Structure formats: C-alpha cells, structure tokens
C-alpha cells in the first residue's frame, strides 16, 4: 500500500457537504418540560400526545445512557442541544410555494421532486430538518387507501391508529435514546396500508440534518394491515459540519396477518473529517413486529456515513410462520465507529429469520457486528441462518463480531457463521492485470463482497449504494 493514496483519502472531502441558508425558527437550547410543551403546541397536538411525551421525558430522566457498545465519544451535553428546528415559513401547499433554496438543496442531493416523481414513480415525503415541506403522490396513494403523511399530521387526523400503534413496538422505556425520542420527536413518516392493499409505489423519505446544533429526532410508524404489502425507502445525506450532531430516531413497523413490509435504508450522513472531527452521532432504534400469521418484515441497510452508528434493526416474530430478514452493509473509514446488527426474537411456531451482515473497515475505524438470535421455548420449528463477514482494509482498523445465540427449543435450528479476511492480493492482481485501476479493482471486489446484500435493495437504491461504497472507500487501498 502506498502512502500517497492514504493521503488522498485523508484529503477526500465530504462530497455532499453544503449548507442551505434559510431562516430558522429556533427554540432555546436544552430540554425541560416547557420545551416539550412548546414542541407539542407548535404542532397543534392533542392533549394525549403531550401527556405521552411528558411521560417519556419523565422516564428518560430516570434512565442512563447505555455503555455496552464498542464506541467512544465525548459525553453528549443534552442540555446544549436544540430540540426543535423548522424552516421559518409555513408549510407550503404546492411545489411552487416551496422555498427555492430548499428545492435547490434537493436537487444537489439528486432528488428533483417533480422529475423523480414522474420518472421513478416514487412518492417523496421529504423531511427538511423537522417539518415536512413537500409531499407528493398523496392522491394516488389515497385512491388505494394508503395513508402516507408526516406523523405530526397523522397525530391530528388519524389519532385512533397512532394511539393504537405508537410505542407498541418500541415502548417509551425501551432504551435511553428511544425514551428521548419519544419525548421530543419532531416529525417523521406515518404509513398505513389497509387490508389486502399492495402499496402501488415505493414510498420514500429523504432526511436531512441542517440546522446547526440541532438534534434530529425522527419518528416513523408503518402499519401493514392484513395481507397488505409496502416497500419503504429511507436515504440521507447531510451538510458538512464541525460540531457533532445527535440523531436519535425511532422506527416502528407492524405487520399483521400475511402482511409484508420491506424497509430499506441508505445512510450517508457526514462521517467527520479525516481526523475524526465532527460527524453525526446516530443512535437509532428500529424494530418491527410480525404480529400476524405468515407476516414478513425485511430490513436492508447500507451504512456508510455518521461518526458513530448505533443501530440494531430488529424483528419480533410473534405470528406463526412469520419471517424476519436483515441484510446489512456497514462501511467505516477514517475514525468512524459503527456498532450495528440485529435482533431476531422467535416467539411463534415455524418462524424463520435470515441475517446477512457485511462489515468493511478501513483507515482507523472500528466496525462491530452485534446481534442476538433468541429462540423462545414456544418457537417450535423455528429456523435461523446468520452469516457475518468482515473485510479489513489496512492494518490500523478493527473488525469485531459479537453474536448472541440463545436457543430454548429442541426442534429449532440455528446456524451462525462468521469470517474475517482482507482483500486478497491475488484478486487485486487479477483485476490489475486486466487493466483496472487499483481503486476500481477495490470497488469491484468490495461490491462483490456485498452482493448478497445489495441485491436486496430496490432498484433506485442499488445504483446509489454501489456508488456510495466506492466513494466511501476511495483511496483506502493503494
């Protein structure tokens, strides 16, 4: 490996680093009951929602930040953060009313709403900081009976659904960050697909963190009623920042009898510079409940960004014959730290889960897979297959695998495999001898290593994800 390429890497700037100048309507820093009341009032929330938030806040005060993950960071000053930020103008009714600055930002991100909508057939509920500013395709979806709206709107317009399901998968007290999110969540998406409906298009939300020092607390709730199916895409990039930004999202999925939910993520938040300065702290709780018979929840994630990733998309397989899947690619470079994995909790009979995790570490980064497979005594005939592979690029990084396997049923079958390796010299040599540059060769090999996961992504994401992988690792092998 040559030192010049390592230097190139160090100088590699965050490609999507730009900020948008829009007047921000900001609250004072810090968190207390008044701030929560203010957030709730700003959103015209009903009383029950405020009470729910306050209960969560009270719970959060009694909890401690978890310390079991393999991540290191200076203490987070929760009282120094802003807990709400919104573009200053009122929510627009059509694209014409949207701030042109915002639209430009989306264009830089590669989501020209109007074109993308027409070409890709994707409805975009774009979240700019905390308030949804543009939503498209509502009508088509409404015709199918699908509800796809900001969760703040759902709280007002579909309270019966929100009250029934919010916090039913990730309870308020589930963990420190989930409790914080429950108290202060700003906005996010709400999806309800009614009985027997196959959602006519892929649903997509782009998140951005924009305001300086603003914690971003997204809350997403997706419900697929009996025999319904939906595919949801989440993708994000963030402007370059010097100060660390906290992000603590909660995503809850509920699948009833025969329902299917596919949730795909491409996460490319600012990872910090080559010295590890700045970057997003991403503490996310994602969990799906397969409540119904033969229901299915599938998580696919490509994680390339953030200074810290703390994220374990999980499935609770309650319904007999339900299926959980987790496909993950996590790439860390420079001083990034990722501690990510999944939990598969088998409760119902003949439940099946598959875990495919590919971790790639380069530079000085640390990349940990942490996963739990639990077969309860009730889960007769349950089946799990897990494969975790790690790839190390360079001798200053770390790759770790921490699987927990707990089996309490004699008729269940659990298999786990893990390997760690580096890019083989002969593979590189072969590609180089065919005229590929070193970087292209690495990109090719890494994409091959991740193929099992990338092929699970919807078309729109697969292309972006492959590019992301190459960009993330640029210059890491010489």
């Amino acid at each position, binding site marked *: 490996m040559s030192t010049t390429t390592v230097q190139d890497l160090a100088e590699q700037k965050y490609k999507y680093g730009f900020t948008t100048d829009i007047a921000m309507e900001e609250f004072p820093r810090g968190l207390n009951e008044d701030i929560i009341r203010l957030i709730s009032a700003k959103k015209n929330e009903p009383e029950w929602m405020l009470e729910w938030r306050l209960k969560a806040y009270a719970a959060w005060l009694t909890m401690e930040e978890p310390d*079991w993950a393999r991540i290191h960071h200076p203490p987070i000053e929760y009282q120094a953060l802003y807990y709400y930020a919104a573009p200053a103008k009122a929510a627009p009714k059509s694209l014409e009313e949207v701030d042109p600055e915002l639209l430009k930002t989306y264009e830089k991100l590669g989501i020209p709403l109007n074109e993308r909508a027409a070409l890709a057939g994707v409805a975009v509920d774009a979240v700019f900081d905390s308030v949804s500013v543009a939503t498209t395709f509502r009508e088509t979806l409404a015709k199918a009976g699908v509800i796809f709206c900001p969760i703040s709107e759902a709280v007002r317009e579909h309270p019966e659904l929100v009250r029934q399901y919010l916090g039913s998968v990730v309870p308020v007290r589930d963990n420190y960050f989930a409790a914080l999110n429950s108290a202060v969540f700003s906005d996010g998406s709400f999806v309800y697909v009614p009985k027997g409906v196959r959602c006519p298009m892929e649903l997509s939300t782009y998140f951005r963190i924009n305001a300086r020092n603003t914690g971003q607390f997204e809350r997403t709730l997706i419900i697929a009623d009996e025999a319904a199916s939906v595919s949801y895409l989440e993708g994000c990039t963030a402007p370059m920042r010097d100060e660390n930004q906290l992000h603590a999202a909660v995503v809850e999925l509920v699948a009833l009898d025969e329902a299917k939910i596919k949730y795909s993520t491409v996460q490319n938040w600012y990872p910090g510079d080559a010295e590890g300065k700045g970057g997003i702290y991403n503490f996310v709780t994602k969990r799906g409940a397969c409540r119904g018979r033969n229901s299915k929840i599938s998580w696919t994630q490509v994680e390339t960004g953030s200074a810290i990733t703390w994220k374990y998309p999980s499935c609770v397989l309650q319904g007999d014959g339900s299926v959980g899947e987790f496909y993950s690619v996590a790439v860390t470079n420079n001083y990034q730290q990722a501690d990510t994995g999944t939990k598969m909790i088998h409760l119902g009979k003949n439940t099946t889960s598959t875990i495919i995790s590919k971790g790639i570490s380069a530079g000085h980064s640390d990349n940990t897979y942490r996963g739990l497979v639990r*077969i309860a*005594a009730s889960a007769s005939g349950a089946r799990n297959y897990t494969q975790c592979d*790690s790839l*190390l*690029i*360079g*001798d*200053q*990084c*770390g*790759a*770790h*695998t*921490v*699987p*927990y*396997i*707990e*089996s*309490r*049923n*004699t*008729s*269940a*079958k*659990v*298999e*786990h*495999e*893990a*390997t*760690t*390796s*580096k890019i083989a010299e002969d593979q590189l040599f072969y590609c180089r001898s065919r005229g590929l540059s070193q970087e292209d060769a690495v990109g090719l090999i890494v994409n091959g290593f991740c193929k099992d996961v990338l092929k699970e992504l919807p078309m729109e994401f697969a292309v972006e994800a492959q590019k992301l992988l190459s960009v993330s690792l640029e210059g890491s092998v010489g």
Partner: protein
Amino acid sequence: MTALPTKKLEAWRYTDLRPLSGISFVAPPVGAAPALPDLGLPRLVFLNGVFNAALSSPFAFARGFAPVAEDSALPLAQINAEQAHDGATLHVPAGVDAGTVLLISHATGDVPFAFHLRHRITLGEGARLTVLEIAKGEGIYWHNPVTDITLAANAALTHIRVQEESRAAYSLATIRASVAASASYEHFTATIGGQLSRTEIHAALTGPGALAHLNAAQLLNGTQHGDFTTVVAHKAPGCASRQTVKSVLADTARGVFQGRIEVARGAQQTDGFQLSQALLLSPGAEMDTKPELEIFADDVKCSHGATVGALDEEQLFYLRSRGIPEAQARAMLIRAFLEAALEPVTQKEARTLLEAAINNWWVQP
C-alpha cells in the same frame, strides 16, 4: 472476600452465581480416602483441597506450594488468591519430556464447604508434559481452582480435564496460559458433573508460531448448568488457535459457550477458528452461545461457526431401518457428534478415561 461476579458483568451474562452466594460454605473437613483408578501413572492427589502424600506417587517435577499474590480483574481468580492454601506446582526444565502426570481432586463432606486449589505449570524451552486432571466428589461443595500455565518457546503441554464433580457441586475453574513462540497448549475439558460449572480459559499467544487448541465436550442433563468460556489473545504474528466445543443437553440442562478471539494490532497471519455445536435433546434444554471476534490486524483468517439443533431425524431413521434400537441409535449419533472435539485427545490413558466417562453418561438415569 472479593464479591462474586454478577450477571451484570458481560462475562457472566449467562451464568448466574446467585445460588452459590446463598450458601454459607465452611472450611473443608478432612477428606476421606476414595478408591482411585490405577492408571500406572505418577499422580498428585488432593483430598478436599489438601495434598495427600500417602495417596500420591512421586513425580520428579513437582515442587512445594507457595502462596501467590494476585491483582486480577477476574473475581474468581482474586477469591482464589485470597483463599488458596495448596495446589500442584509443576516445573519441567528445558528440553525434558516429563511424560504424563495425573492430577486428582476428590471432595466429600456433610456440610457445604469450599476449597480453592492453585496450580502452577511451568515448562522450559522445548519441554513436554501431559497433565490429566480428574475432579470427583460427593455432596455440596464449591471447587474454585486456578491454574496458571507458562510455556517457554517450543514447549508443549497437553492438558486434559475430566470434570465429574458431585451433581450437587459448584465447580468454577479458571485457567490462564501464556504460550511463547512455537509452543503449544492443547486443552480438552469434559464437563459431566456439577450442578453449576464453568471452565474459563485465558490463553495468550505471545510469540510467533504459538498454538492453542481449546476443545470441550459438555454432557449435561437434569437441571445442570455448564459454561465453557474462552478468551484467546493473539499477540504475535503467525499464531494459530482452534476451538471445537460440543454440547449435548438433555432434560432442562443449560449449556453456555462464550468464546472470544482477540487479534492484536500487528498480529498478522493469525489463523483463528472456533466452532460451537449443541444438541438439544429435550424440550426444556437451552443453549446460549456467544462466539466473539475482536480483530485489529488485516492479514488474518478468522472464522467461527455455531449451530444449535436436535438430532437429525433422517439419520436416526436410517439407523433404525438397519435394525438398530432407538436408544442405541441415539447414543451412536451423539457419540459421533462429539467426535470432532475428542479427536485431538490421543493420549492413551486419557482417551480410555474419557470414553469411560462418556459411556457412563448414557446409562445415567
């Protein structure tokens, strides 16, 4: 006394020592002389934690016991250091092949008692030794032995343990091995006895080309709890470690395997392999597995595999269709399942002893 570890400690997540802390253990009574197998080997016998010269036979490489100072993050090793009064100290000088020695612990008593043996095994450059450890007993007691092993370059230690403690006993063994360049540490534990037992091994591969084999077979039934925990630290380049752990769990027994392979920065060309397989024979049995990799070097080959399941019905059917009765067919399949872990045990007396212990397990009620 240093406090017992609790489940809040990650290393003790699956093994709960609360039943142990509820018992007030007294100092060991004078042990009664048991009937001991004569394998025609030199032997060191400890009764209720005290060396018994009359039952032992001379072994040229044994030394007297000396107390130890300890400042350990391991609570059990710390307790042992505070309490240990006796133990085997074996020293084999460079270039000497010391053959095989039996290390026997036998415990009996009417009231619950505890004993904390502290063994030390030191092998000089190129020295060789086989230690065959047998632990047996009756009644309620807590056996908390610590074994510290230092192997100089090119030394080879084979360490075989047959844990057949009393079914009411608590057996918590800690083994620490430091393995220098091109030296090898071959370990095998058969966990058969004990109400609650754990074998915790810390092996550090400190010189290039060092090797560690840590194998185990856990055969548990009733309400037994068995834990096999290992940490292999690859600290030098070109070292290899192999672990094969097989657990057979019947009734409501619970098996635990926690294994961590650590590869330090600079420990290139590391070859680490770990396999944990468990058979759950009854609906109430449970297996908890945590195979962990912690890797800070890029030119390494590390892998682990873990499976948990039942006996293969097709294999069973095949044997039955050949006229083999079900019980016998099951025994055959379980014996075959254990083979990969037993395979490296080639020492004749050890092999005989192990086979007898395993065969004995089938016929237990």
